[in-house]
């Protein structure tokens, strides 16, 4: 085969692109789209859980702190205090686990 001249190149370039069947492509596109949406919703769920976890820790911990000052409870060890204020977050994690699992 000889090399092309300018006119032959123009003719080659001006030819329409081949027609491609859509079936398989559309199925793939749909699957990829679903996968992306699923990943996005998982990330959103994770962040929501984290935000809720922070709220559920900070608010009860503040109450526990205030209650200790109010009732002058000074003999609670730091371990017990931590466990007491971590209870809500543990409960939330258990509920979250069952929700996501279902």
């Amino acid at each position, binding site marked *: 085969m000889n090399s092309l001249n300018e006119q032959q190149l123009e003719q080659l*370039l001006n*030819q329409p*692109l*081949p027609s491609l069947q*859509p079936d398989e492509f559309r199925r793939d*596109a749909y699957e990829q789209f679903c996968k992306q949406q699923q990943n996005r919703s998982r990330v959103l769920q994770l962040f929501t859980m984290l935000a809720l976890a922070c709220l559920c820790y900070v608010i009860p911990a503040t109450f526990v702190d205030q209650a200790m000052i109010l009732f002058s409870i000074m003999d609670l060890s730091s371990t017990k205090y931590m466990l007491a204020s971590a209870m809500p977050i543990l409960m939330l994690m258990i509920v979250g686990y069952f929700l996501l699992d279902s």
Partner: protein
Amino acid sequence: MLSQFIRRFLQDNDQQAFNQLVNACQSQLRGYCRRLTLGDIALADDIAQETLIIVYQQLGELQDPNAYKSWLFRIAYRQYVNSLRANRLETHFNQNQGVSPAEDDAYQPHLHTDNEQLLVTLMQDLSVEQRALITLNSSFGYGHAQIANMLDMPLGTVKSHIQRGKQQMLATSRKLHPGAA
């Protein structure tokens, strides 16, 4: 016709209309992506799919439904350029980690027609911009000014890229077939 599908999808959230929109343009979009990727069919279809996902999410932002196709090609071009950047970063990372190059280095394109195969072969020494501009200009019939507007490039750059690209294709042809033209 396309603007009707767009209107139906945006106003009535008609998924069937979006399917028809995809059907109407998928062949051109994939053909364009195959030129950009130098005939890498899998990568081209990935780019086309990612493009359509962006279209699905951002179709409401399209101000002029008549400019749908040029908007589509612009997104596809950007997607491909982004994938090249990501690939370059990955290659750089792999080199630093001592990982061997990807297995598909010995990739050979296998396209729909002999002409398409020949065109992709002639385009192998062109830059991404040149491949995109020549395809948009010659195969889809967009004018220089339209392409400049579509891809946010100066008009002079578009013209020179197309001219140099074609010269390069002729040079590649001479290199591959060193006979008289």
